[in-house]
């Protein structure tokens, strides 16, 4: 419960009231003065002074001086009149309470209005500074533009001047050339009247130096020659970009892995070496064996590779070639057919492989003397590549053979 202060004193002039409150050893800093136009509260714990003015004061212009053990408040009156008394008459609690509440409300409104005006003022200032900045930058930009435009003007003028000079020089050249040809004509006619002396060119060509080169003979064209080059190998047809290299490597790795792993459920292969599980490696081995003539071993290699991965058409193709060499013609036909099945859909990429498959199957058919089927296959091969000479000549031979005009021979040449 605060202690009410009663020992304050007050004096008045027509326009103001002077209120003196002894501070009773309170710290001046801890004195809180709250005033509206009809209520005043001075609070220095534990003391409290409340004054309900009988008439209105102007709290905006009132001043409080706190120090030296007293607080002196100079309150300006709203109306210049002598007051009968400082406080209002009756002290009905309700009235007092309502006055207090009103005072608090008023104080709040005032502070809200204050802060609003302050914010508006700040915004005004910001806008102003912004506009100023923009104007300055505009000015700078215009300067630069002007500089550029000046440069352009100057460059254009120079260009024009240079062009004019070129034209004039060209005209001078023309005039001089004409004069020289005239002179030469005169001189020629003159000298032809005299003894034929060598007409050493008195016409000194004072043209640009490059013309002298015209007089010097140009070297003969070089002898044609070819230089063979090799490129850094690259699998993809697109250009090499550093940022794509990791993606490309990953793709290649995935392709290689996919080809390895399609049938790893063959338990009998557990004792094979790592190399021998790789169908690509096996294919290479088979190719080498084929080239050296060891067809049976090649077939074995291809068999193993096919066990590992049934979907590689090249394996069937190569095995077909081996079978033809070994005269296992039915097997050859089977393998070529399987290769062709795997090579669907028919695109440009596997045209090569498909042609090989057709040719091999055709060869096998012809060896079996089923020439009609053989011819069909050769025709299919020709459809893919109509310009292949060997295939063309073989197809011709078969056709003639069928028509019975060629009695002997000929298994067509084996072009693998």
């Amino acid at each position, binding site marked *: 419960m605060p202690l009410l202060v009663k020992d304050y004193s007050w004096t008045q002039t027509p326009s103001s009231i002077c209120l003196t409150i002894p501070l009773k050893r309170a710290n001046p800093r801890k004195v809180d003065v709250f005033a509206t136009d009809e209520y005043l509260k001075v609070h220095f714990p534990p003391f409290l002074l409340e004054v309900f003015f009988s008439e209105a004061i102007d709290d905006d212009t009132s001043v409080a001086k706190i120090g030296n053990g007293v607080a002196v408040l100079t309150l300006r009156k709203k109306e210049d009149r002598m007051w009968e008394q400082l406080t209002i008459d009756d002290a009905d609690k309700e009235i007092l309470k309502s006055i207090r509440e009103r005072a608090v409300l008023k104080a709040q409104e005032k502070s809200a209005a204050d802060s609003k005006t302050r914010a508006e003022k700040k915004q005004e200032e910001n806008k102003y500074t912004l506009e100023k900045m923009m104007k300055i930058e505009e000015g700078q930009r215009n300067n630069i533009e002007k500089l550029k435009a000046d440069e352009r003007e100057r460059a254009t003028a120079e*260009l024009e001047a240079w*062009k004019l000079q070129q034209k004039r020089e060209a005209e001078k050249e023309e005039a001089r050339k004409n004069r020289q040809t005239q002179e030469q004509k005169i001189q020629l006619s003159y000298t032809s009247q005299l003894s034929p002396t060598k007409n050493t060119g008195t016409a000194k060509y004072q043209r640009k130096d*490059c013309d002298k080169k015209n007089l010097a003979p*140009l070297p003969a064209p*070089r002898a*044609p020659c070819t*230089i063979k080059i090799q490129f850094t190998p690259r699998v993809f047809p697109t250009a090499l970009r*550093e940022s794509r290299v990791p993606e490309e490597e990953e793709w290649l790795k995935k392709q290689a892995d996919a080809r390895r792993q399609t049938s790893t459920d063959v338990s009998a292969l557990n004792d094979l070496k790592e190399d021998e599980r790789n169908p690509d490696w096996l294919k290479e081995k088979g190719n080498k064996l084929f080239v050296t003539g060891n067809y049976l071993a090649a077939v074995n290699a291809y068999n193993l590779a096919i066990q590992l991965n049934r979907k590689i058409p090249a394996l069937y193709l190569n095995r077909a070639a081996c079978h033809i060499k070994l005269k296992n013609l039915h097997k050859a036909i089977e393998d070529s057919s399987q290769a062709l099945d795997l090579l669907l859909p028919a695109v440009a990429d596997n045209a090569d492989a498909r042609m090989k498959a057709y040719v091999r199957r055709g060869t096998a058919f012809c060896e079996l003397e089923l020439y009609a089927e053989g011819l069909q296959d050769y025709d299919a091969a020709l459809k893919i590549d109509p310009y292949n000479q060997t295939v063309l000549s073989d197809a011709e031979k078969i056709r003639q053979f069928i028509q019975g005009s060629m009695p002997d021979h000929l298994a067509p040449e084996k072009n693998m």
Partner: protein
Amino acid sequence: MSTPSEKPQIISHIHKSLNYTVFDSKWIPCSAKFVCMGNFARGTGVMQIYEVERGEVHLVKEIEKAKPIKCGTFGATSLQQRHIATGDFDGNLHIWNLEVPDVPVYSVKAHKEIVNCIDGVGGLGIGDGAPEIVTGSRDGTVKVWDPRQKDLPVANMEPVEGEARRDCWTVAFGHAFNDQDRCVCAGYDNGDIKLFDLRNMSLRWEKNIKNGVCCVEFDRKDISMNKLVATSLEGNFHVFDMRTQHPTKGFASVSEKAHKSTVWQVRHLPQNRDVFMTTVHLFFLYGCRCETDGDVDMGVAGTLNLLQNITLSTQPIASLDWSPDKQGLCVCSAFDQAVRVLIVTKLNRV
């Protein structure tokens, strides 16, 4: 060179919108005209000659041809004749007299596929020796032609039979300091740069720069090889010091990743061989030294200094050509069907 007013400025002087895709633009030597080459939407090739006059360009002549034209050069003609050699989409090499463009002065079916790039040497009063034209194509071959010899290339750099072919994207002549010596440098899409010596008809040096090579250029064609700039995809370019070749390490180089994407062209300033412009930043190479590495010389490429840059268009600028007559004037063409004439100022203070 530190204050901004001292740096060279790149100013766009003239901008002309065209109604066709323009692939290449070249100044006609000793004149204020340039040629733009490209193709119309209807699939025919076109060459247009423009003249720069008082802040504007106006069309002097338009020549339409059957096949789209990809590239051209004036490098192999004399200053009086000023014939342009062009490569087109069909693999043909033609040399045209622009005054009488109906029939080519020289024509040969150079390649089986599109001629991607062309360069000429021996003309224009620069360099000694016979005029020669080199073309590079998508079929992986680089061929050198002499306009006096019909149908047969003077040199043919082709892949070994059976090898996969890589596109050749750029070619450049260099090292043509006397009658006999010539070098051709070719860049391919798999990052290979190969240097061929035409005197010995051999491969002199090759290197792979890990990104497809878009453009190579020597700093001067008519001197002993000094510097070679090679630009590539991914915004990289390399500058090689070609004066000293180490037996194993090749040529020394400095490289920089200066752009966010493909550097399409590089061109050296004809008047100052240490300044070059990549599209479209302007670079200055300062000082190439040679160091001795033990008892074998090894070159040291110097340092690069970016002088200025400018963004002209959202589309790549595919071709760039400095005017040999006026320092700082250049014409460039971009894939936004526009050709621009630029002025670069303060180059004499570089």
